C-alpha cells in the first residue's frame, strides 16, 4: 500500500524531526547558546505526530509550554523554530517568545501558551470561529494532565459541547505536572472518562503507538468535520527528561520507571512496525539522513541569524499603538 507507506514514512519522519530537533536544542542549551530552560518531549513524539497527522495545514492547533514538537508535528519548517529558541529576529516570533511559545502560525498554530490550561478556551474559540465561517476547519487542542485540573478545561469542554464545535481536546497524560504525579492531583484514573460529563466521546489511547493515536484521532476529526462536535482524547505517555532541561534534576521518579517507558520508545516501536511492514532499511536510512540534514541546517540558520534591533522591543504591543509609548 503505497499511500499508507508514504503516510507511515511521513509519521516516522516527523517523529524523528521532533526528537533530533530537541536533541540539537538541548546541545545548544548546554553550550550556552540558548538561554533559559527547555521543556522537551522525548518520549511523547507518537502522541504529537499521531494527533497532528490527520490534520491539514489549514486546520488549527493550540500547544502548551512543552511544544517544540507540536509545530513540527503540524508540519512547520525547522529553521525559524530553531532561530526562535536562539532569540533571533528570524525566529517565528522574532525572538520575542522563545521556547515556551514556539508557534508557527503559517501551519495553523494559534499559540503555545505557558499559562497552563489557558490554551483550551482559545482553541474552543477558534473552533467557534471556524464553525461560523463554515470553512470545515478543525482545531486540535493539546494540554497536559496537570492542565486538566484547571477550570478552563471544564468551561471549554462545556461550551464546545453545547455548540457542537469542531475541536478535539487532546490530553497528553505523561503522568506528571512537574514533580507532582497525576495520581495525587487528578481525581480519576482516566481523564477521558470526564467526556461523559460533557456529552462527548472520550477515548484513552496508548500514546507510544503512533498508529493507535492516529486511528482514534482520525475518528475524532471525521466526527468534527461532520459537524457532530468535539471529542476528548487522552494519550498515556511519558517524558524521559526532567520537567525542563536547564533546571536542576529532581527525584520524584524512579530510574526503573523511566527505563520501563524507554523500553516502549515510540520511535523505536514504530521503526520496528515499518520494518515489519516492508519498508526497507535504505528507505528508513534516507529519512533519517534527511532529518539530520534539516536539523543541522536549522541550527546553522539559527546561529547565523541576527538578533532583532532593540527598538523592536516596543513593537507588537498593539497593532495600532495610537500614541507613542512612553519610555521609562
Amino acid at each position, binding site marked *: 500500500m503505497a499511500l499508507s507507506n508514504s503516510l507511515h514514512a511521513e509519521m516516522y519522519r516527523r517523529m524523528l524531526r521532533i526528537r533530533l530537533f530537541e536533541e540539537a536544542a538541548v546541545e545548544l542549551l548546554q553550550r550556552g547558546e540558548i538561554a533559559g530552560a527547555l521543556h522537551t518531549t522525548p518520549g511523547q513524539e507518537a502522541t504529537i505526530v499521531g494527533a497532528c497527522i490527520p490534520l491539514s495545514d489549514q486546520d488549527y492547533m*493550540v500547544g502548551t509550554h512543552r511544544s517544540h514538537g507540536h509545530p513540527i508535528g503540524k508540519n512547520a519548517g525547522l529553521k525559524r523554530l530553531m532561530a526562535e529558541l536562539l532569540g533571533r529576529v528570524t525566529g517565528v516570533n522574532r525572538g520575542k*517568545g522563545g521556547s515556551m511559545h514556539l508557534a508557527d502560525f503559517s501551519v495553523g498554530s494559534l*499559540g503555545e501558551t505557558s499559562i497552563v490550561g489557558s490554551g483550551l478556551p482559545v482553541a474552543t474559540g477558534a473552533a467557534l470561529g471556524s464553525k461560523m465561517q463554515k470553512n470545515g476547519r478543525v482545531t486540535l487542542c493539546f494540554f497536559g494532565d496537570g492542565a486538566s485540573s484547571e477550570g478552563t478545561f471544564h468551561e471549554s469542554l462545556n*461550551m464546545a459541547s453545547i455548540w457542537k464545535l469542531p475541536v478535539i481536546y487532546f490530553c497528553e497524560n505523561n503522568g506528571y505536572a512537574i514533580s507532582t504525579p497525576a495520581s495525587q492531583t487528578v481525581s480519576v484514573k482516566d481523564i477521558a472518562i470526564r467526556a461523559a460529563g460533557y456529552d462527548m466521546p472520550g477515548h484513552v489511547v496508548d500514546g507510544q503507538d503512533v498508529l493507535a493515536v492516529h486511528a482514534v484521532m482520525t475518528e475524532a476529526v471525521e466526527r468534527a468535520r461532520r459537524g457532530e462536535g468535539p471529542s476528548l482524547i487522552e494519550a498515556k505517555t511519558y517524558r524521559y527528561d526532567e520537567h525542563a532541561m536547564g533546571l536542576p534534576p529532581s527525584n520524584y521518579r524512579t530510574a526503573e520507571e523511566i527505563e520501563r517507558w524507554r523500553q516502549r520508545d515510540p520511535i523505536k516501536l514504530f521503526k520496528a512496525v515499518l520494518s515489519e511492514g516492508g519498508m526497507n532499511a535504505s528507505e528508513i536510512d534516507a529519512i533519517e539522513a534527511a532529518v539530520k540534514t534539516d536539523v543541522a541546517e536549522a541550527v546553522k540558520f539559527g546561529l547565523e541569524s541576527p538578533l532583532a534591533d532593540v527598538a523592536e522591543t516596543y513593537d507588537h504591543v498593539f497593532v495600532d499603538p495610537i500614541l507613542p509609548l512612553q519610555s521609562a
Partner: protein
Amino acid sequence: MARVNYLAALRDAMAEEMRRDPRVFLMGEDLRANLYGSSGGLLDEFGPERVIDVPLAENGVVGVAAGAAMVGMRPVLDITISAFLYPATDQIISIAAKSRYIYGGQTSVPIVIRSSMFYNAGAAAQHSDRPYSMFMSTPGLKIVAPSDVYDAKALLKASIRDEDPVLFFEDFNLWGTAARLPDDEEIILPLGKAAIKREGADVTVFAIAGSVSLALAAAKILEGEGVSVEVIDPRTIKPLDVETVLTSVRKTGRFVAVDPANRTGSVASEIVATVSERIFTSLKAAPLRVCTPDTHIPFAAHMEKGLYPSTESIAAAVRKVMAASKPQ
C-alpha cells in the same frame, strides 16, 4: 436627530457595526432576552448565530472570544457587571493582551469586552467595582470609558473597528441618560483622543465616565464664583491622551483629577503623577485627586451614597486649588 437612550445607543452601535461587517458578532449572558437593555432587537435582526448566549464561564468565554478573533472574527463580548472581569483576568491579560507581542506580530486579538460599572446602585461590595484602573498597567489592552450617550455610541463603534483588544467600561449612572443623535450620519470617534468638554482658563479638571457630568455641573457653579474651569474627558483610559491634559494645565496652572474608582492606584493618581513629573514648573498649586476612598462598597444606601465624587466634592477641590494659588 432622534432622542436616544444610553443603552439604545450602545445597541445601535453594535447593530450598525454588525451590518457593516459580517465578522462582528455578540456573545454574552442573557443577550437574547435583552436582560441589561442594550441588546433589544438584535436577535431578531441578526439571528442566534450572531447573538450568542453563553454559559457562566467568564474566563472561558473571554478565551473563546480571543480564539475566534485569532481566526478572523470580531467578537463583542458583554461580561455584564465589571466585577465579572475578575474571573476572566487571566484570559484578558495572558492571552488577549499578550498574544500579539509573544508571537512577534503573527496574530492579533480584536475583541471588545463590554462591562458595566454598577456602582451607586445599592449592589454591595461584589458588584460595585470600577476596575478599569486595575488593567491600566497591562500593555496591549485599550481601555475606554465613555461619559455620555454620544461618546458611548461613537467610541463603541471605534472599539469594534479597532484591531486591538478593548475593555469598554459602561457607567451604570449613565444608563438613564439620553441625547439627540443624528440618524442620517454615522458617528464615530478616534480612540486615544481626549475631549475638552468645556473650555476654561483657571483650573483643569480631568474627569472620567460618569464623573464628567459632575465636573461640568461643578464648573457651572464655579463660574458663578468667578472661577473658569476647563473640563477634560480622556474618553480612553489607555492609551491616555496625556498631551491634551498637559497643554491644558500649561495654560491653567492648576489641576484636579476626578475618578470614581478607588483612590489608590487610580487613573487620577496616574495622571497627577504624569502632570507633576512632566510640567511641574507650570503648576501653581498642588494637584488634587477627587476619588472614591479606599473602601469596599457597603449595601446600605446611607453609607454608600457619600462615597463617590460629587459635584460638591469636585467644586470643593477646585476651590482648594484656587485658594492655594491666589494669583500674585
